[in-house]
């Protein structure tokens, strides 16, 4: 039995439903990422220039001039740094906000995870 014959056995409503489902699926694929407030992305900027934009849920380790940035299990950290302060390394894993290494002029920001309302907005 050929595929064409199989398709001939479908009813009109089958086909309408199929078109409808394909349409909804397409719409969802296009629109859901748009609707979500920036899906979890890790931005790595050096000298205020965007170097990487990576999804936070893909595990990865990237060396950036003296720093080692590690993305794992929806979190990001600076695994190693050759800077004297080691502030960025001490900060550990984050899943929102930013890690900033001033001496290396590296800014690692996590976008898309909604701001936590009970946290601290800034530090003086």
């Amino acid at each position, binding site marked *: *039995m050929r595929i064409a014959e199989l*398709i001939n056995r479908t*009813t009109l409503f*089958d086909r309408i439903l199929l078109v409808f489902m*394909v349409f909804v*699926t397409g719409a969802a694929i296009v629109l859901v990422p748009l*609707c*979500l407030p920036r899906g979890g992305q890790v931005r790595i900027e050096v000298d205020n220039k965007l170097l990487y934009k990576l999804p936070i849920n893909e595990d990865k380790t990237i060396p950036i001039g003296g720093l080692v940035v590690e993305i794992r299990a929806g979190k990001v950290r600076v695994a190693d740094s050759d800077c004297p302060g080691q502030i960025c390394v001490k900060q550990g894993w984050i899943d929102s906000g930013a890690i900033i290494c001033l001496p290396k002029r590296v800014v690692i920001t996590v976008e898309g995870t909604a701001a936590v309302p009970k946290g601290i907005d800034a530090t003086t």
Partner: protein
Amino acid sequence: MQQREKYRLALLAACAIAMYGFERLIPTPIPWLRFGFANIITLITLTLYGFNAALTITLIRILIGSMLTGTFLGPPFVMSLVGGVFSVAAMWAAFRIRVFGPLGLSLIGAFFHNLGQLLAVYAVFIQNLRSILILAPVILFIGTLTGVLNGLAVIFTMEHLKKMSDNVQNTQ
């Protein structure tokens, strides 16, 4: 229940479990992502023998299947159970209005199976609408794809069954 009917249900349930076992051999990128080939059997049963029979073999399939794979009463079991019941109920409702063929029913079944699973996940395990929203396109896509494949498989099988029973009747 007549003995004959019991045998038939047992046979169909065995087929469904076989399908279920078979599809577990096919590797998929996401562990819980399945083709739902067992739905072919469920849908044939529903068309030929009605709601009760379809629900029975679905429940047997989920129960035995989960015991075979060691997930009995675990999260995948709850998800399958809710999804399976949703799917059978939705297909039965659609079948009763008599405008859909196997393809449409299969699409509806796949969709409601996923919907049921998501509801179970949401109600029992994680109250995170956001992650469910992220999954929605993937689930819709897979549901539509497997819905079409299974629907075509049902049409194919039904045609064969018809021919076979015609042959049987002709030879008698």
